[in-house]
């Protein structure tokens, strides 16, 4: 991590950020003002997080995405113009992202995150560390304690397992154009995942399939709001981050924080 100089908040910034400075204080705003953030993935959720960080006044935000703009991108991702189909998603999001706040340095990078050398990441400020996603997903559900916890566990956690496996196997997310085949595969993966965790396949019934095919913009905004604030907390070192998953259910309008990982 690069050493930061102590940033100064200009009068213009103090006026624009007044309402949030009253909330988290001037020191926190200064730390934000000196932070460079990397955001990988500019789908609906990524765009919402980008918006929240840009409005908050970080020093720099790099939008990293190797994907191209598809027809679906425009429905839930408001930074990409309808005319940008076929372009790189990060580059297509740049103009509107920058316009949100000229005081932030916004960059677009069309590369894959896997292709980046280690020292690429050094230019960004570290976010708070959780256990890795892999560890969070490797919970042993056969123990008595886990079985008791199962009742309170949001089903979305298992849905996450299924979606990640789909992504690993197919190299992409479920596509409405291949709704039937992808639906079949999702059902199959659901059965496999739950069996591997020694759980009944009744746990996640067939309804879930209809939730897997696209992003709904308001749901992106809710999760993007929470996620954005998590990043702000981490950068401003003011509060502890959530432990460690937040699930939002748009159908019921309810959210839950839960912890998954080594005890």
């Amino acid at each position, binding site marked *: 991590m690069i050493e930061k100089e102590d940033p100064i908040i200009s009068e213009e910034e103090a006026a624009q950020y007044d*309402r*949030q400075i009253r*909330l988290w204080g001037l020191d926190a705003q200064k730390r934000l003002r000196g932070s460079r953030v990397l955001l990988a993935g500019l789908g609906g959720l990524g765009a919402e997080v980008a918006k929240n960080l840009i*409005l908050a006044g970080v020093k720099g935000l790099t939008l990293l995405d190797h994907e191209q703009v598809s027809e679906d991108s425009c429905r839930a991702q408001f930074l990409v113009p309808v005319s940008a189909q076929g372009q790189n998603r990060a580059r297509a999001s740049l103009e509107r992202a920058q316009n949100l706040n000229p005081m932030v340095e916004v960059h677009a990078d069309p590369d894959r995150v896997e292709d980046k050398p280690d020292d690429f990441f050094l230019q960004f400020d570290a976010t708070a560390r959780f256990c890795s996603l892999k560890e969070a997903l490797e919970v042993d559900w056969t123990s008595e304690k886990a079985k008791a916890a199962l009742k309170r566990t949001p089903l979305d956690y298992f849905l996450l397992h299924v979606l990640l496996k789909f992504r690993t196997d197919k190299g992409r997310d479920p596509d409405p154009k291949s709704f039937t085949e992808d639906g079949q595969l999702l059902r199959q993966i659901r059965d496999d995942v739950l069996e591997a965790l020694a759980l009944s396949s009744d746990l996640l019934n067939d309804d879930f399939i209809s939730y897997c*095919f696209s992003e709904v*913009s*308001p749901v992106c*905004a809710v999760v*993007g*709001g929470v996620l954005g604030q998590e990043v702000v907390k981490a950068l401003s070192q003011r509060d502890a981050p959530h432990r460690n998953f937040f699930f939002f259910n748009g159908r019921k309008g309810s959210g839950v924080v839960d912890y998954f990982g080594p005890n």
Partner: protein
Amino acid sequence: MADAEEPMAVESGHRDGGWDGRWNHVRKFLERPGPFTHPDFEPSTEALSGFRLIHVVDMDTIDVSNLNRQFLFRPKDVGRPKAEVAADFINNRIPGCKVVPHFKKIQDFDESFYRQFHIIVCGLDSIIARRWINGMLISVLSYEDGVLDPSSIIPLIDGGTEGFKGNARVILPGMTACIDCTLELYPPQINFPMCTIASMPRLPEHCIEYARILQWPKEQPFGETSLDGDNPEHIQWVFERSKDRASQFNIPGVTYRLTQGVVKRIIPAVASTNAVIAAACATEVFKIATSAYIPLNNYLVFNDVDGLYTYTFEAERKENCTACSQVPQDLQFPPSAKLQEVLEYLTENASLQMKSPAITTTLEGKNKTLYLQSVKSIEERTRPNLCKTLKELGLSDGQEIAVADVTTPQTVLFKINFTA
């Protein structure tokens, strides 16, 4: 989101277990004939979700401090009306969506305006305004033989935020809990007691209130002008007097920023909380408009001050709610009670919380104003009535009084029952 080829239908509710029976009334509402249940309806925050015609009402202009979260506005828009800039932005950005702006107060419109809408969403900045729109939508309800006609219901989706806290709720006027049903849920506004301000300050805020409430009117530093929170000279004056007071009592923490915050009653605000609550509201509008899902039932609270807390519960209707229950409100007073006491009851009672009620009644067949504050000449003329007893004013047992107030677009009727 379900495949577009599947027919839009109300969620049957089996899989959601306990939601089943409770939602029968909502199902009746959602299944009624109307634009929502049109088979060709395309559900394609609402503009992105495919809504075609949106009217926006806002009486405010854009300030630079709005830009940290109100992302439809840019620095060049400062000074312009919010409704108009928001409309321009969306009309230019989303093809096929029309936003019609109204640079007005919600109270500038009457029921003929509000009746044209299928759904109303608000992000208002005061409880008074919320109660007003709530009252307006209740006033357009129609009852036949005492039974509510579902086609007269206009759903109200209300969201609000303050710093890291927020809430979103769905109100079906006449059917589910309204704003006034849950008035007691709102925390009381912070107003410091006068004795603390005048003689025993402990906080920097007390010192600022001292300068604002006591010193400014006494010293009139800029002539007979009232204190203007947007005038830096005024704030500077209050700031300096506050510092003096604070140093007398050894109280740290008086800053220019704090002074401004106290004088203008500034509420901190950030993009993330607003994103969450706005999105929750938009989701509900979408669900109701498409009749495709059961709406939020019916109150969501969100708080990420410390960690993250969110909870959804069903706020219940109040049986004798002054706004929506249609139950005539009974008041008990002895005939020797002064009108002042009635006024205090109307303003201080937790379920009523009126701001400056105007009381009229019918005596000897004629309409008589007992007390009205908002017009200076009438206030002066009726002020002596406050010290008169109800008997002296000619009121009898069971007398009906009509009360008007900013919290409601319609007058509320009360019946005064005499106690011994």
